[in-house]
């Protein structure tokens, strides 16, 4: 044991997770110690309502230790109180998690300086907390008219531009409030929550197989990664052994999902600079991958593929050779397109220096995935916390850029596409024989009163599922943390001091999910 827990904590270890129950009085110091002394990464923070059994809410703080491929979990119980000391003044990455707890559980982080509701809007009563166990999911609270105050910038010539929630393109809804000085962005505030669907609450009531389907819809463009993360968590509970072939197939499908979305985003970034050739080609490549997905699995977005214990779609030898052919032709096209893009000075000029997210800010906010790597954070869940068949695949060094601008995020995607293409080819060549899913003769029995953490490197970044079961072995809390929830907080910083015509490009280079954030 090398972590610096406080001496009052009760420590248990199971698999790759170290858990410590800490008294409320020590929790902040313990969390700070883990981050500062042990150099762990703050991953996630959430709560469970255990008033029925333990007389209070339980707070969970999850930290990651990439060097040991393991997670550290701090938990503390709030006995007969809803107040707890805020961690966000010390670890900024906890900021939005604490706001969420305040909105959805009615827990009060003392010392947090912005407790405006997150995700829920002015029409939702501020004294109804939907994630408490005594809130029935079918309750329809009366509409109220609260107020929401945007941050106000004052000064000579400062004006505001409200954008959205409905945008001109076919994208999800979200409101952006720009405070402007001429063409420059002085402050940007994003107001999301328009696609809130009550997914976390739904996980509490749906039967298990429908929960898997629900996880596919947390963010539709990451269907496979989300259901993979959720299935892995359930497999931990049920101690299901997933066959080797299924583990490898999961790698193939996950990389196909990454390819489709990276192609789409690479094209989208070029399109938003007005470089129409690149834009059209990116959309074309994405469509080719989606059609390939449909031919292989029957679903363009790989829905219905993941199941507890493996995958429902095995690949036949002729499908494998088709896959190999298509991957080869995709690579050839992609390399040609990127060659053209790299030689376009007007394109490079638009991307370079635009929307800079500095390494300091990115580290402070715990920015994940593509955006994190573009700002110098070398992290990749596939290598840091290996899952599925990734341990057996060599992905090479994690691509990292230091500039943190649109071009860096573009470059990271280009490099990742090449890695994905090679990864698929390698896995297909060495695909183990055997079954593609564990025998499912009986319904899976889940461990009781247990916690499972499951991390997957989605194409945006790390998707982390926090799942607990109750004393009857039923799933009673799921927190699907999409990387968008974390990365949205980087946008105001990246947009600051840019000219407003560049904002759509900056936004596209992050390419975040509204649905995954709003849940």
């Amino acid at each position: 044991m090398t972590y610096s827990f406080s001496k009052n904590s009760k420590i248990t270890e199971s698999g790759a997770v170290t858990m410590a129950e800490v008294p409320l009085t020590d929790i902040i110091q313990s969390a700070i110690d883990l981050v500062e002394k042990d150099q762990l990464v703050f991953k996630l923070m959430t709560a469970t309502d255990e008033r029925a059994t333990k007389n209070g809410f339980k707070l969970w703080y999850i930290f990651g230790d990439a060097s040991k491929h393991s997670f550290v979990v701090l938990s503390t119980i709030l006995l007969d109180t809803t107040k707890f000391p805020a961690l966000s003044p010390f670890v900024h990455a906890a900021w939005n998690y604490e706001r969420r707890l305040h909105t959805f559980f009615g827990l009060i982080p003392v010392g947090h300086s912005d407790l405006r509701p997150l995700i829920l809007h002015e029409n939702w009563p501020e004294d109804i907390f939907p994630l408490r166990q005594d809130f029935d999911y079918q309750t329809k609270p009366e509409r109220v008219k609260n107020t929401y105050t945007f941050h106000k910038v004052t000064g000579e010539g400062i004006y505001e531009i409200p954008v959205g929630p409905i945008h001109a393109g076919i994208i999800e809804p979200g409101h952006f409030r720009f405070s402007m000085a001429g063409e420059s962005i002085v402050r940007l505030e994003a107001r999301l929550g328009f696609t809130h669907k009550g997914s976390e609450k739904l996980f509490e009531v749906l039967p298990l197989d429908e929960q898997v389907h629900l996880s596919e819809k947390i963010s539709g463009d990451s269907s496979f990664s989300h259901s993979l993360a959720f299935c892995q968590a359930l497999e931990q509970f049920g101690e299901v052994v997933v066959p080797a072939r299924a583990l490898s197939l999961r790698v193939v499908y996950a990389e196909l999902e990454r390819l489709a979305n990276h192609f789409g985003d690479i094209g989208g970034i070029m399109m938003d600079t007005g470089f129409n050739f690149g834009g059209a080609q990116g959309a074309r490549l994405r469509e080719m991958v989606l059609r390939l997905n449909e031919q292989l699995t029957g679903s363009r977005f790989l829905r219905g593929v993941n199941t507890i214990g493996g995958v429902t779609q095995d690949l036949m030898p002729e499908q494998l050779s088709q896959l190999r052919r298509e991957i080869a032709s995709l690579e050839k096209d992609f390399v040609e397109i990127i060659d053209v893009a790299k030689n376009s000075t007007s394109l490079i000029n638009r991307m370079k220096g635009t929307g800079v997210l500095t390494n300091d800010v990115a580290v402070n906010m715990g920015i994940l995935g593509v955006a994190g790597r573009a700002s110098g954070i070398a992290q990749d869940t596939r290598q840091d916390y290996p899952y599925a068949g990734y341990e057996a695949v060599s992905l090479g060094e994690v691509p990292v850029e230091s500039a943190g601008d649109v071009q860096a995020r573009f470059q990271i995607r280009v490099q990742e596409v090449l890695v994905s293409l090679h990864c698929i080819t390698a896995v297909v060549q060495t695909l183990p024989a055997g079954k593609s899913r564990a025998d499912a003769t009986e319904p899976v029995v889940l461990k009781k009163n247990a916690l499972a953490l499951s991390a997957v490197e989605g194409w945006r970044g790390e998707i982390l599922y926090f799942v607990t079961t109750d004393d009857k072995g039923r799933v009673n809390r799921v927190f699907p943390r999409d990387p968008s929830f974390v990365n949205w907080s980087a946008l105001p910083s990246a947009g600051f001091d840019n000219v407003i015509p560049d904002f759509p490009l900056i936004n596209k280079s992050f390419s975040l999910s509204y649905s995954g954030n709003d849940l």
Partner: protein
Amino acid sequence: MTFSLFLLQGLLVPVLSPLCVGVIKKIKAWLQNRQGASIIQPYRDLWKLFHKDERISKDASWIFLFAPLVVFSVKVFVGWNIPLFSLDSGFFATSDALVIVYALALGTFFLALAGLDVGSAFGGFGSSREMTLSALAEGGFIFSLLTVALLAGTTNLFGIASHSLFDSGLHFVPVILAFLGFFIILLAETARFPFDNPATHLELTMIHEAMILEYSGKRLALMEWASANKLVLFFALGANIFFPIGLASGTDISTILIGVGALLLKLLAFCLVIALLESSMAKFRFFRLPDLLVASFILNAVAIGLINSL
């Protein structure tokens, strides 16, 4: 005969302009491996808009209601007064270079006012950007016409066209420089790359489209039609003032037909260049655009300097 020529001259720009827009879109689609809409789609779009109801903001004043008429009529007026296919279809006092420049400026002025009128943030920054660009473009525009006017000894556009026609080969360098300067202005004034992206849906990046964002129905149709007209006007100016080859100088049918044919070919060439440009480069950042416009001004200044030294 003269009257029918006069009528043809007036109608040619509004009739041809949607086709030009359609052709550019078609070529761009081909260059992107797409099939693209039919080249007559812009006519259908206008037809559709003219049959639609309008939504007008309750904050709109008479300027908002009146501006599309001004903007459209200015374009028709200018179309009547510049050499299109024949040298004998015009020659009015109103065909003066300065009249044309400032008639177009009047249209831009009302367009910008209309953008500001309903008080939406998008219209506001659209107008602000448009005024920034047109203030800088005006100098280049006047100087490019001034170069050829000095060569021809008249500021009447028909005069310039007929003069250069019979003097071709002389003053080659100043004319080419002035044309390059004019071409940059053409891109700025007609809201094409790298100044503006006519195909974008991103409201924050728009210039021309942001100003007409509040329009719908018939008034939107007039605005769209007017901007298509402006495109053809600038193509025709560029083609006939600097390279007046093929302009008819007579009233018999065959010369008129040759003149119209030459105009169509020239328009097609311009469409092709615009489509190629918009498919092969990214739009510039807004604050790089003044550099381009200043470059236009300098090109024209050099052109004028060359004339004087001859």
